[in-house]
C-alpha cells in the first residue's frame, strides 16, 4: 500500500465522520433513517465475508478458507471470544494447507 493511498483513505474516512458534526444543524433523525442506520453495517459485513472467502480474482474459488470460515462461524455462533474465532480460522487453513 502506498503512502498516497493510505493518506487518501484517512482523509476520506475523516470527511465521512466529520460531515454531520461540522455541517449539520441540530435536530432529531427521522425514524426511517434510524431503521436504515440500525442495519446498515450488516449486508456490508456479510458481503465482505463472502468476498474474502470466495474471491479468487473475479471468479469464485473454493479453498482452505471455506473450511476456516465454517469453523469461525460455528465458534462465533457459540459466542467464542474474537481472538479465539480468528485464531481457530487461521489454524484450520494452515492445517489444511500443510496436509
Amino acid at each position, binding site marked *: 500500500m502506498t503512502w498516497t493511498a493510505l493518506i487518501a483513505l484517512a482523509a476520506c474516512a475523516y470527511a465521512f465522520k466529520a460531515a454531520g458534526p461540522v455541517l449539520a444543524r441540530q435536530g432529531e433523525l427521522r425514524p426511517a433513517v434510524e431503521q436504515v442506520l440500525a442495519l446498515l453495517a450488516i449486508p456490508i459485513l456479510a458481503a465482505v465475508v463472502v468476498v474474502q472467502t470466495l474471491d479468487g480474482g473475479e471468479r469464485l474459488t473454493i479453498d482452505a478458507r471455506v473450511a476456516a470460515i465454517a469453523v469461525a462461524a460455528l465458534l462465533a455462533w457459540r459466542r467464542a471470544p474474537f481472538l479465539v474465532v480468528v485464531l481457530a480460522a*487461521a489454524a484450520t487453513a494452515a492445517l489444511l494447507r500443510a496436509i
Partner: protein
Amino acid sequence: MSVTQIRPVEASTERAAPERSVTRAALAIGVATGAYGVSFGVLSVAAGLSVAQTSVMSLLVFTGASQFAAVGVIASGGAALAALAPALVLAGRNAIYGFALVPILRGSRLARAAQAQLIIDESTAMARSQDDPAAAHRAFLATGLSIFVFWNLGTLTGALLGTGLGDPRALGLDAMFPAAFVALLSPQLRKPGAPTAAVAGALIALVLIPVAPVGVPILVAVAGVVPGVLASRRVAAATDVG
C-alpha cells in the same frame, strides 16, 4: 470495530453509579478492542505494509472494519486503489453515525471536528444507549478515547510482533480476515431484520464477484439493507398485532 457486544448500561438504584459504570464499560470495551488491534497489526504487516504505515493507518483512519478490509485486499494481491473501495464503503457508515450524533456532540465547531475522529460503531452505540444528552456525550467521549488508546497500542504491538512471521498463507493468515468479519457480524444478527439483510448482502456479493470489478460487489451489497428494513418492519407489525 464492534468486537464487543454493547449492552445499554444497566440502570442502577444508586444515583452516582451510572457515571462510574459508563467509565468501566468504556475501559472494558477499550481493552477488548486492543486485542483486536493486535490482530490488525499482525495482519497488516503480513500483508506487506510497514510498521509505520500500519500505525499511521490506525491513528488516522481509526475505523477497524475499514482497515481490515483495506489490508485484506492488499494481502490478496490487489492494487492500492482496489483496496480503497471496500474500505470506503465501510467507512461510509460513520457518516450516518456522525449525523446521528449531531444532537449529542457539544462544543465549538472546532471541538466537534476534533471529536468526530472518535466516531465509530462502539462510541456511537454507547452514546445512543444513554437517556439524556449530557450522559450520552460523556459516554461517547469515554468510549471513543478508551478505544483510541487501546486500538493504537494494540496495533503497534501487533505490527512489531508480526514482523518476520513468515509466509502468511502457510500460517492461514488470509483466513483471519473473513473470520474477523464473521466475529464482527455474528453479535449483530440478533437485531430484527438483520439475518435478512446479511443473506441479501452475501447473495449480492456472490452473484457479482465473477462479473464485477473488485470493490463493486461490496458497494452494491449495501442494497441488502432494503430487504432487511422491510423484514424488521414486518417483525414490528407482527408484534404490534400479536
